[in-house]
């Protein structure tokens, strides 16, 4: 839909760590028995990315599957593909106990880039974000200041933060504020 706009309207704050709106992003919540052949097959065949291990993620091109809980993953895909993928996943899982829903509009995705992004996060989350505890590929749902968020360490220089759209402005602001802090010399 051409009228769709991301909640943060492309906001971006540059600095040693850049915090930016990652823009419209397809997101699908998928619940079911993660260990079942049907669930695994749906992920591999439709998304090309397998079911991730706990706290992990799998990536295939512009799609990714993020582990959210023992019976839930979050599928990332190009925004335009979300509706069709949702339908395909529902079809593939037909007959098994599952839940699939397009949540592309429910959340915002923020991207952090820069070598000091772990310090930015360390100002806001009680989670241990040191490289040994939070390596690339890991997904951690936690708290950023006063809001719930999920963090995916894409690489040592890039992380993505997923939060509900209603608090996207707050999360953007606290991340931008934290990103502008003086170096802490951690990590």
């Amino acid at each position, binding site marked *: 839909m051409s009228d769709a706009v991301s909640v943060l309207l492309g906001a971006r704050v540059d600095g040693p760590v850049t915090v930016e709106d990652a823009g419209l992003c397809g997101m699908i919540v998928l619940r079911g028995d993660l260990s079942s052949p049907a669930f695994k097959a749906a992920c591999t065949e439709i998304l090309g990315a397998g079911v991730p291990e*706990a*706290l992990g993620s799998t990536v295939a091109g512009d799609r990714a599957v993020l582990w*959210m*809980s*023992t019976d*839930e993953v979050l599928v990332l895909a190009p925004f335009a593909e979300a509706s069709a993928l949702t339908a395909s996943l529902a079809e593939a899982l037909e007959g098994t106990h599952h839940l699939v829903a397009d949540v592309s509009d429910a959340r915002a995705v923020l991207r952090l880039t820069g070598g000091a992004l772990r310090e930015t996060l360390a100002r806001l989350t*009680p*989670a241990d974000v040191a490289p040994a505890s939070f390596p690339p590929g890991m997904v*951690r*749902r*936690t*708290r950023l200041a006063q809001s*719930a968020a999920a963090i995916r360490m894409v690489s040592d220089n890039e992380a993505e933060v997923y939060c509900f759209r209603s608090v996207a402005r707050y999360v953007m602001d606290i991340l931008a504020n934290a990103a502008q802090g003086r170096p802490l010399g951690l990590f």
Partner: protein
Amino acid sequence: MLILTCPCCGVAADETELAPGGEAHLKRFGPGSSEDAFEGYLFLRQNPRGVHFERWRHAYGCGKWFHAARSTTTMEVFGTYSAQVTEPPPEITAKIAAAGKPTA
């Protein structure tokens, strides 16, 4: 400020990532139950000075409920375990017994 390891996702979660849920292993009494049984279910709690079996939810994480066996006096945690059981698993009660703590 406790740290409890969520048995569902394995994260050693900070207390601020968790939501407390009170005493564990309550048996629900519904319509037809006696006044005493219903009162016990709804209101009466052990509140022990010692090992407490309690419910927590990894609210800022995987969202799952779990159980913890924790001393209310020393904050020692004897283990966390599934919310889908009606009594503590034997390895946890054994650990508590080995520590010489009563499990009232």
